[in-house]
């Protein structure tokens, strides 16, 4: 078992004829993902990596039975691409694109929540269930099928956590890159809900960062609803206030959303917090041992 995607997931790539779209379609296919096609308006009839290209997502779904998509279209067209996938009834939408205007996401978020689709991203590495299905840009070989459910707002920091848990032979059930933008499709809480129900997941790692209050809200949720052990790390303990650290999300203002506040909230919920990013794997192991 896993969450969101597995070996039966049928994946298309929106923006498949672009450089990144084609490159990562190849990477996902080589990993073993069931890639079934792609979409680029005006390019139907072409093939990329041996896969058929369609003009619309609706057509791609009809022809291939796709139920997941990864989106690589440029930022000005990302909102449209996500809404097209929602309209076509795609279940899991991973928007990898970085740089989507935030007000576009206000509309998109509302539309996604009215639908049955799950949106991961934008500005995220994607989703992987090791050994079964990789949708996105993460290096596949660092993953290992196993028991840790990982979710994060940062891409490379997730790789770091994956690497550490693989080295400890814990492996991962599924890894979800939620995305670094102020508005993303899915919250930690929705993923906690899924990881809690997933029998393969024995322990959950949440990688957060400064800014906002998503980590604090997740901590409250964990305290009330999660029976599995949870570990966490918060990036940005040393970030100066008011400065934007790459992710638009990582801005702290006026003492709100600081790392110290977040760590306090997490620990109060019984979550093992890694003191340094090198200790994320160790924190997961400790959470497993503690078994609440």
């Amino acid at each position, binding site marked *: 078992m896993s969450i969101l995607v597995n070996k039966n997931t049928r994946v298309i790539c929106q923006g498949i004829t672009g450089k990144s779209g084609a490159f990562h379609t190849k990477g996902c296919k080589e990993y073993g993902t069931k890639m079934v096609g792609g979409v680029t308006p005006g390019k139907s009839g072409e093939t990329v990596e041996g896969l058929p290209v369609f003009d619309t997502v609706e057509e791609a779904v009809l022809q291939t039975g796709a139920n997941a998509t990864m989106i690589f279209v440029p930022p000005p067209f990302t909102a449209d691409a996500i809404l097209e996938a929602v309209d076509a009834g795609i279940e899991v939408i991973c928007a990898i694109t970085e740089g989507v205007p935030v007000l576009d996401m206000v509309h998109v978020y509302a539309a996604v929540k009215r639908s049955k689709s799950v949106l991961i991203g934008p500005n995220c590495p994607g989703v992987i269930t090791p050994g079964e299905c990789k949708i996105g840009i993460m290096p596949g070989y660092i993953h290992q099928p196993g028991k840790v459910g990982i979710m994060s707002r940062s891409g490379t920091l997730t790789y770091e956590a994956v690497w550490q848990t693989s080295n400890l032979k814990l492996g991962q059930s599924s890894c979800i890159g939620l995305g670094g933008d102020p508005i993303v499709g899915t919250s930690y809480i929705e993923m906690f809900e899924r990881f809690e129900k997933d029998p393969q997941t024995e322990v959950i790692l949440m990688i957060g960062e400064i800014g906002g209050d998503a980590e604090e809200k997740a901590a409250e949720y964990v305290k009330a609803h999660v029976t599995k052990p949870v570990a966490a790390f918060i990036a940005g303990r040393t970030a100066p206030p008011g400065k934007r650290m790459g992710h638009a999300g*990582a801005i702290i203002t006026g003492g709100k959303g600081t790392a110290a506040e977040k760590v306090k909230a997490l620990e109060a919920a019984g979550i093992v917090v890694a003191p340094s990013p090198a200790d994320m794997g160790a924190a997961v192991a400790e959470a497993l041992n503690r078994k609440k």
Partner: protein
Amino acid sequence: MKIHEYQAKELFRVFQVPILQGYVAKTPEEAQAAFDQLGGSLAVIKAQVHAGGRGKGAFIEVPAQRGVQLVRSGKEAAEAAKNMIGNRLVTIQTGPAGSPVHQVFLEQGCQIARELYAAVVLDRAAMKPLLMVSSEGGVDIEKVAEETPEKILREHFDPAHGLMPFQVRKLCKKLNISGPAAKNADIFFRKLCDFFVKLDCSMAEINPLVITKDEKMIALDGKITFDDNALYRHADIKELRDVAEEEPAELRASNSGLSFVKLDGNIGCLVNGAGLAMATMDIIKYHGGAPANFLDVGGGANTQQVTEAFRIILSDANVEAILVNIFGGIARCTTIAQAIIDASKEVGFKVPLVVRLEGTEVEEGKKMLRESGLAIISADDLTDAAKKVVASVGK
């Protein structure tokens, strides 16, 4: 991206957000002419910098001159402008070096009955824009938020149809605004929210927002931040960027597509990914060091970009060692290795260089570095890297 007050007011005029008459001036003569053109017996002259706290701020070169001043004649306006233009204004938000003033803004005076505060921001938690209004105008809003949060009224709105009239009625009721002022408030708040949405702002702050004795509602100041990701659809706003207001190294980085923030430590960092870059700063501090910068080379960085990143880091005289931390996903370790080799040829590393590579093409990357003959301290993992770089500056 931020803009100056006078630019914000120009945009307010276009979007019918009520403002006073005002003119920008680049010389004392222009300031004098602007005063005469305003035609009143009183005007306010304001130094144009992006930072807040101008009223209490002072000039390095002319310590008696504040950033905002009342003037009663064209001559007074010219004198104040002379003190301001070409000099550096220090406020609580600029840091001790201050910001250079290249122009001033002259605005009509008005009879103020009440001072309020208003801001439109994006509320990440609610995933919607939010209008905040406070009865405590003209003061530090963070202080109000901390000490008397009940004094900040909040109304979320849907960008598709904007702020609704009933929401303004709610605000007016709580703020004790009635009669013609309430009618003017309806215009003001709804136009401001419209402005926020149409121009893709991430913040539009009016402090103070005043109600005049003749019951008009007017923006006396305007601090606007635009969503950088949306600038592609606002070519005219993109042109309002004032590079003189930006930290030179950060500007250089942004021109090369790098994300860079200067800090005051002595360990330069070069990392891929914002989260990992923040975590790298954290682990340096955890092991007793101090990061000199945040630098994210991004996923698709090429050799030129990475070489430029090294140049930017090395241009900081405080840097005594550099830590490179790469977890290759899209970025390949070989790209980084090549960039290190190129940069060393071009700029030369006079400070210790600790390199930790992991991920895509790691073995090839490590091999390239070994064979380059460069004096590189290689690290096996994050902790090892942090300890080695901290030790190297301690020597």
